[in-house]
């Protein structure tokens, strides 16, 4: 994602200058020069050989797969017979008539709206706490990071019991505080908060990114503000927050995309057992797509589902980038 410096007076680093437009005279010369001069033929051949694995994979498993997916979404695909026949818009029409689609979409969006801000807040809080300690921060970082290393099945197998409404440790703990805990995994109202709790337990990936960003906040800026009499709160909002806004913004986008595709925990807690009955509130979009494709083998309908969520994720990301670019402060253009 290319970004431009908001403040034109910001001194740009030397390598960045190369990206700015050359003077018109040089530009004209560059354009007139035949391309053959600019590349060494042997070098070009070698380069394409080196990147050929990616090109091949991209053509088959990304572009090819996407085209294939689009075709299937307009077809009836019978995997047992190996036949594919055109369906027109039938799959998409079914999409809009199926009451489970808005249900799954609603659940997923609700989860994302709940999870992403909480993840950002908790991760930022933890990162700020860790950034303040000098001794022992490594130990705490390790402890906070362990949940992230835990396989989703292990997490789910433990939280299935911790979140049990009758004898689970979480409700026992709440009872000590005088709170009557809910039926986390049964009560439709509490299904999504349950998942958010599990997600927050593994929030340390985001924390590590934010911690790295905090370490990059120049201390002289903070010290200058302190000499000017700015309090801790003022320093946080005027210096720290703008300086880490890039990392925050990146995390919001990535976490949103992940939240909209949440699968593992929902599947493990509610849909693992095919005969079991799961509350409607736990039907997430990725789970429904998985069921339609790999339990019902309705690949046409599943592909239509996939394209719908693709368009939704794309739209949300675009809006986030547009809004984000207005608030994010980019210190230097570190172009990838």
């Amino acid at each position, binding site marked *: 994602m290319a970004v431009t410096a908001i403040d034109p007076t910001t001194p740009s680093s030397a390598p960045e200058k190369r990206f700015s437009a050359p003077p018109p005279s040089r530009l004209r010369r560059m354009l007139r020069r035949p391309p053959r001069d600019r590349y060494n033929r042997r070098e070009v051949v070698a380069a394409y*050989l080196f990147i050929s694995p990616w090109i091949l994979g991209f053509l088959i498993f990304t572009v090819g797969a996407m085209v294939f997916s689009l075709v299937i979404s307009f077809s009836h695909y019978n995997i047992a017979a190996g036949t594919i026949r055109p369906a027109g818009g039938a799959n998409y029409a079914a999409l809009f008539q199926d009451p489970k689609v808005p249900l799954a979409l609603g659940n997923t969006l609700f989860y994302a709206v709940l999870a992403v801000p909480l993840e950002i807040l908790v991760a930022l809080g933890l990162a700020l706490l860790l950034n303040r300690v000098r001794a022992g921060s490594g130990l705490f970082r390790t402890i906070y990071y362990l949940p992230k*290393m835990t396989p989703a099945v292990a997490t789910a197998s*433990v939280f299935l019991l911790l979140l049990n409404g009758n004898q689970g440790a979480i409700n026992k703990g709440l009872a000590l505080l005088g709170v009557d805990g809910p039926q986390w995994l049964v009560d439709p109202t509490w299904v999504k908060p349950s998942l958010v709790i599990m997600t927050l337990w593994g929030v340390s990936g985001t924390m590590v990114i934010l911690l790295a960003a905090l370490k990059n906040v120049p201390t002289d800026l903070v010290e200058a503000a302190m000499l000017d009499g700015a309090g801790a709160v003022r320093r946080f909002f005027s210096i720290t927050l703008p300086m880490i806004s890039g990392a925050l913004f*990146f995390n919001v986008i990535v976490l949103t995309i992940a939240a909209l595709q949440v699968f593992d925990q929902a599947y493990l807690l509610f849909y693992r057992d095919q005969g079991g009955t799961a509350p409607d509130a736990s039907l997430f979009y990725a789970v429904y797509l998985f069921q339609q*494709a790999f339990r019902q083998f309705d690949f046409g309908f599943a592909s239509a589902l996939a394209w719908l969520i693709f368009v939704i994720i794309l739209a949300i990301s675009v809006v986030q980038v547009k809004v984000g670019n207005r608030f994010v402060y980019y210190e230097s253009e570190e172009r990838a």
Partner: protein
Amino acid sequence: MSAAVPTDRGPRYRLRGVVGTAVHWTVLLAIAALFLYPFAWLLSASLKPRGEVFDNALIPATPTPENYVTVWSELPLFSWVGNSLYIAILAAVLVALSSSLVAFGFAYFRFPGRGILFGLVLATMMLPGAVTLVPQYLIWNQLGLVGTSVPLWGINLFGSAFYIFLQRQFYLGLPRDLFEAGRMDGLGPWGLFRRIALPLSIPSFVIVLLFEFQASWNNLQASLIYLNGGAASGYTVPLGIASAMTKYSPTNGGHGDYQYVMVAALLVTLPMMLLFAVGQRYFVQGIATQARKG
């Protein structure tokens, strides 16, 4: 931030600093306890007999270390770990090698289309997996490989966007003179990669290995899609434990011997802890790089 506050401002300020530090450490410790509690719970549940698994006691009333012996005959855990190890190692090595090749192509050479193609590499990082899930399955099905472990590592032959990005960043940081010297010594493009770039990029190569090993070890969905329905001995760790959860969970009519699920869950988490203990530095570096790719 308070680290920079001058400390000689008088006793009142010093006292505030001490209290602040104490509060700060208390909060850190409390959070650590919160994060560690599920692990403690898991460990003690794995050491309890059938009737006590759900009693929430952190110290088992009847310690049952036999669980750790019985579990191996109770569940085909040995096969699951073996399958997962095989797949994860293969997946990690293949993706590290292929991504390094591709990354070197992008980092070292000048060629037409480089900017656009690298932009596409970055774009695929943001692509939601949902769109390619079904067609990729149908492709593997056409090749007759559904039910084998090939779909769980096969795609790694073609490099992976984030790892390509990571390795490329590393190669770009290597001094150009090194390669000039190599060329003087008669190394061709392959030699420059094999003899100079690859050996020097061990740190980021390790990051790729660790990340992909972890991702593969934890990958539930691919196992569900490609291995489900086959013999239980062919399962991977995530798929196996998921099936054990159903088999033993008392809430949906299982046997109730949930302690075996707990033992298995603990045993498959340990390698990840070990991986992190050994490679923490690499993990932290790798994650911190993610924020810079935007």
